[in-house]
């Protein structure tokens, strides 16, 4: 695993031993070297290429219920020792201890195979993708007035060691491409966006045609030029395939994170084994899904990614766990300990969260809906896990009238209560699809997450439009 050695294992052993000197019960060093590239085209010009490098280590020392944390960009022996000392004095245990940390047993995770490393692809090829996307929209004869396209790749190498003898690492490569368009008509401007992102190398662009991505974004904006104000009030909401992941992420995903459960800051605390959703609902969080945006070999605490069934046939089966919460409950981490960078402490986070396919027919679900809305693309969302109230945005949606898709509607939020919405899911189709790559924010930290759903219907949600 030379590819993921940033700091020698001898030095890691030394630093961990010194971090444990003040009597902590656990010490961990998380070393990260991340290189990222982005290229932006806007208003017809390649505005900039941006290359970044962030490299450093975060060291935490746990003593009792207290975690001391320090980070440094200095990966020399003296830099790491200084950070270890800062973390261990922050954990401020009073006892002295001699702990020998042995890292001779390195574990080998299932690192994603990469066909084409982005760093080996010329910048001009990356820029060419942007130009092609831009031209394909401008040549299409659509009333599109503005195109912005963004290419991004990141190469993240991790090395994680702890006082329990864990020594492991991972190499995570992600590639993404997105296009945003503005269309103008008599009633003002409208926007459309489409993005793709996978935990793969430049081979992403062998399977993905960026011109199609761009035209999808453009079509979305143009379609909305004829949009009507969204309705206001409670009604049935049908969410298209791949579109509903954000709904579950907010309606119950966050509420199933063990750190929030432990602090009774979730409506799902104490509900394990209970029926919390309609019987057709099976919800899974799976960090092992090859290529997906929230995929990794190990989480940011060195535990292998897992497939975790959170809700099975409507019954809450388990929460998601990181090292700290799992230790307290005498169980193993579920591979959900993640952090934005070496500058952050890990916490419980989702990976790829998806609703398993049902046996309904998507067309019939729409036909069976007298009046409501159909959401083809969701924007972001937000939840208050303690009350369960959550919102999510719609960026491509239509009215359903007499069982048929009707006029497109303008952007807005929907609001609902998680526990209620889970019970109100009355149809799930078999047309499962993964959604767009997302960045999940929690406590100021952003991590890449994936999601997916088949077509589904919630029999009652509040649509926050302005038409009455």
């Amino acid at each position, binding site marked *: 695993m030379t590819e993921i050695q940033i700091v020698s294992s001898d030095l890691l052993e030394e630093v961990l031993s010194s971090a444990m000197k003040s009597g902590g019960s656990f010490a961990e060093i998380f070393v990260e070297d991340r290189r990222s590239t982005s*290229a932006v085209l806007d*208003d017809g*010009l*390649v*505005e*900039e*290429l*941006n*290359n*970044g*490098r962030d490299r450093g280590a975060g060291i935490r020392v746990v003593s*009792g*219920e*207290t*975690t*001391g*944390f*320090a*980070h440094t*960009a200095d990966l020399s022996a003296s830099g790491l020792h200084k950070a270890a000392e*800062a973390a261990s004095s*922050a954990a*401020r245990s009073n006892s002295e201890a001699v702990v020998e940390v042995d890292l001779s047993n390195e574990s080998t995770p299932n690192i994603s195979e990469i066909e084409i490393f982005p760093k080996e692809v010329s910048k*001009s090829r990356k820029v060419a993708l942007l130009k092609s996307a831009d031209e394909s929209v401008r040549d299409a004869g659509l009333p599109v007035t*503005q195109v*912005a396209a963004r290419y991004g790749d990141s190469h993240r190498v991790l090395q994680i060691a702890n006082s329990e003898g864990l020594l492991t690492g991972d190499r995570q490569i992600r590639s993404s491409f997105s296009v945003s368009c*503005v269309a*103008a008509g008599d009633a*003002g*401007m409208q*926007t459309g966006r489409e993005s793709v992102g996978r935990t793969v190398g430049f081979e992403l662009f062998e399977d993905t045609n960026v011109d199609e991505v761009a035209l999808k974004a453009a079509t979305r904006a143009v379609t909305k030029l004829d949009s009507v104000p969204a309705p*206001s*009030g*409670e009604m049935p909401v049908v969410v298209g395939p791949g579109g509903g992941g954000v709904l579950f992420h907010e309606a119950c995903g966050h509420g199933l994170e063990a750190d929030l459960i432990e*602090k*009774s800051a979730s409506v799902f605390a104490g509900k394990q084994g209970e029926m919390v959703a309609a019987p057709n609902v099976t919800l899974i969080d799976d960090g092992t899904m090859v290529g997906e945006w929230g995929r990794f070999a190990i989480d940011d605490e060195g535990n292998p990614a897992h497939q975790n069934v959170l809700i099975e046939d409507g019954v809450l089966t388990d929460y998601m766990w990181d090292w700290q919460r799992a230790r307290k409950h005498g169980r193993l981490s579920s591979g959900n300990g993640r952090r934005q960078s070496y*500058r952050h402490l890990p916490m419980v986070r989702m990976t790829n969260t998806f609703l398993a396919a049902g046996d309904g027919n998507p067309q019939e679900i729409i036909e069976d809906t007298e009046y409501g809305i159909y959401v083809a693309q969701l*924007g*972001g*969302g*937000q939840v*208050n896990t*303690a*009350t369960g*109230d*959550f*919102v*999510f*945005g719609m960026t491509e949606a239509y009215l359903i009238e007499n069982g048929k898709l009707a006029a497109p509607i*303008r*952007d*807005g*939020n929907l*609001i609902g209560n998680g526990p209620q919405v889970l019970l109100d899911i009355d149809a799930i189709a078999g047309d499962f699809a993964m959604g767009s790559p997302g960045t999940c924010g929690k406590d100021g930290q952003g991590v890449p997450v994936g999601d997916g759903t088949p077509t589904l219907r919630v029999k009652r949600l*509040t*649509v*926050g*439009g*302005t038409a*009455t």
Partner: protein
Amino acid sequence: MSAELIEIAELVTSWSDSDEQVEAVVTSDRETEVRAYEGEIESLTVAESQGIGVRVIKDGRQGFAYAGTLEENELLEVLSEARDNASFASPDEFSGLAEPDGVESVSLDVYSDGVDSLATSEKIDYALELEKLTLATDKRISGIESSEYTDVVSESAIATSTGIRSSSKESGCCLMVYALAEEKGETQTGFGFSIGRNPDELDVVKAASDASDRATRMLGSTKPKSERLTVVLDPWVSAQFLQIVGSTLSAEMVLKGRSLFADRLGETVASPIISLVDDPTNPQAFTATETDGEGLATRRNVLIENGELKMFLHNVWTARKAASTSTGSAIRSYASTPGVGIQAISLKPGGRDPVDLIAGIDNGILVQSVTGLHSGVNPISGDFSTGAEGLRISNGELSEPLREFTIGSTIQKMLKDVSEVGSDLEWLPMSSAGSTVVINELTVSGA
């Protein structure tokens, strides 16, 4: 340290060739974060971080690179990456770095040594005390989700081969608590905070009681029915809306055809009682700054006066493209090229206090928190709808709590529907201040 940062920035710009422009932005932060939970320290973070961003412009082409370190061997690499990147960008005749424009920067007192001199043990005590006080405010407070003290000392410097030199140092500290209130099996949450440049400005009691009030007042809340009615935004909410309005007034949005206010200069775009000013030279703003992200002096910019749109905000690039001058409104981090944006925006206060404003409303809703601003607001089309919580206003008095509803309108319509701005004005931990604002008509979507 500032002297050292400017030396690093100057060192990098000294490497520029005669046919290129080079800009270096160098930053260094020291931070402490203490989290308390159930009377113990849950976590204590002490950290220092540095970063450098280098921009190169050659033949009108711009390239950029950054690194999260200031090690000397990396500086050269960042510069050479930025140079290489420039060769792939499109030529743009308006590209160019800032040049000294003769505007003197105001002198702001935004650093206080209190953050540096306060012992870690006292920082810990702040977090523990905050948790304890919040729990004691009301017997319905059932737990504390998080209670934290954070502080940061940030230094930054900018130098360019075109003659810009600027450096700054600022301090800030913050108390933040999230409380859980419980009654009859129902849980509600509320937050409270206090911010300052110096720890002795922190008000633990206020943070605790605000969190408690916010959480307990929502107990027993119900969902309102859908209707159009008068909505009052409290300062916390109006400050967030001002940020969105401010984003539409960037010249970058205008020049790239993304502003709903393009071509509206000199026209009435808001109610005549609205005057909107972006003034990062105001020391009361926690985001006050002497220089902008390109090293130019910040200045007071009047965006809307008595409802009339007066100007857009510019950085150097938008100013050149629009044949105008920079308004000192470049915003950025070391890891990004400069954008354009508000830095400290506020509404001109009106003559009546919030109690008086509410007393004049027969039927309305006071909105005290909003969610989903990032997902439900489209600043290009102007459509918005956000999740909301608040209190019913009946016959001039605040009454029952309401939740799980949205408020919606368009940015264009809402600005015209503002009927009152309160006499209150509160600077918040964001680049805006809030005031109590009455909006004649918004659509409430609920049951």
